[in-house]
């Protein structure tokens, strides 16, 4: 237990340092993009937050499979923790993308395939919490949540590939795409470094938050058990 706390403290420090370095890279190291100006810098953390969203939804689907196979409560705890973090980060990605779109596309929102599928993903995972609220029995709730997390995850790759296979105005950062899209750009070396460093930082941040949120989940489970013991 003591070792776990020490490891978590080390991870906290690493996360804070990485986050500060990433912020410095974005504002001081990465050059200004010629046509979009400063607003292009939103892209570094916008993509990173979307990445955390997708990563967390993937982790929750894996946790769902693990729960259905093993039936241990910890898989449910990590699964719900993962979805909660990803839900917040995916929302950040949608809002920050909308702020970027206003000066570049001249609109806050358009029903483009990427934006639409991203909104659908967010709604699907929003409904996940409603589902959990609606089931009182812990084991039943965990089983339903596991199945929902696995099925819900199918919407995530759809969002990822939507800008690669459908007609869209959303830029493709990795793997080419239509060069005529509004707001597309080629990354220079420092931009690429800042971008991948931000992705790495947010992955570590996700791991750190997941650890903390899972501890909270374990405490919530303990409280639930104590309540049951008191009432029975």
């Amino acid at each position, binding site marked *: 237990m003591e070792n776990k706390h020490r490891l978590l403290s080390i991870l906290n420090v690493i996360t804070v340092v990485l986050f500060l370095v990433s912020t410095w890279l974005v504002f001081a190291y990465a050059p200004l993009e010629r*046509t979009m*100006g400063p607003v292009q810098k*939103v892209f570094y953390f916008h993509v990173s937050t979307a990445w955390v969203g997708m990563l967390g939804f993937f982790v929750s689907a894996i946790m769902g499979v693990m729960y259905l196979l093993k039936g241990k409560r910890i898989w449910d705890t990590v699964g719900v923790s993962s979805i909660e973090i990803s839900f917040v980060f995916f929302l*950040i990605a949608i809002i920050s993308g909308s*702020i970027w779109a206003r000066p570049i596309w001249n609109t806050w929102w358009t029903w483009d395939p990427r934006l639409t599928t991203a909104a659908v993903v967010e709604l699907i995972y929003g409904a996940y919490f409603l589902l959990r609220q609606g089931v009182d029995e812990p084991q039943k709730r965990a089983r339903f949540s596991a199945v929902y997390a696995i099925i819900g995850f199918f919407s995530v790759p759809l969002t990822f590939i939507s800008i690669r296979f459908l007609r869209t105005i959303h830029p493709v950062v990795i793997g080419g795409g239509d060069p005529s899209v509004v707001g597309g750009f080629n990354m220079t070396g420092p931009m690429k470094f800042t971008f991948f460093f931000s992705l790495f930082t947010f992955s570590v941040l996700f791991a750190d938050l997941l650890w903390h949120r899972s501890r*909270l989940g374990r405490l*919530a489970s303990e409280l639930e058990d*104590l309540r049951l013991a008191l009432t029975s």
Partner: protein
Amino acid sequence: MVFQMVDTLTYMIAGYIVIFSFILGYIVSLVVRFRILHNKVATYRTLLEEG
């Protein structure tokens, strides 16, 4: 092409205010929930011990 740098600077600042405030807000919510749950668990344990 003359680009309105001041305008996009405002959007960049707005974007990062959203990003940082959401992340900070989520971390604060974790801390607050942890403290509330911790206190509740302690209370319930005491109640159980007292019978």
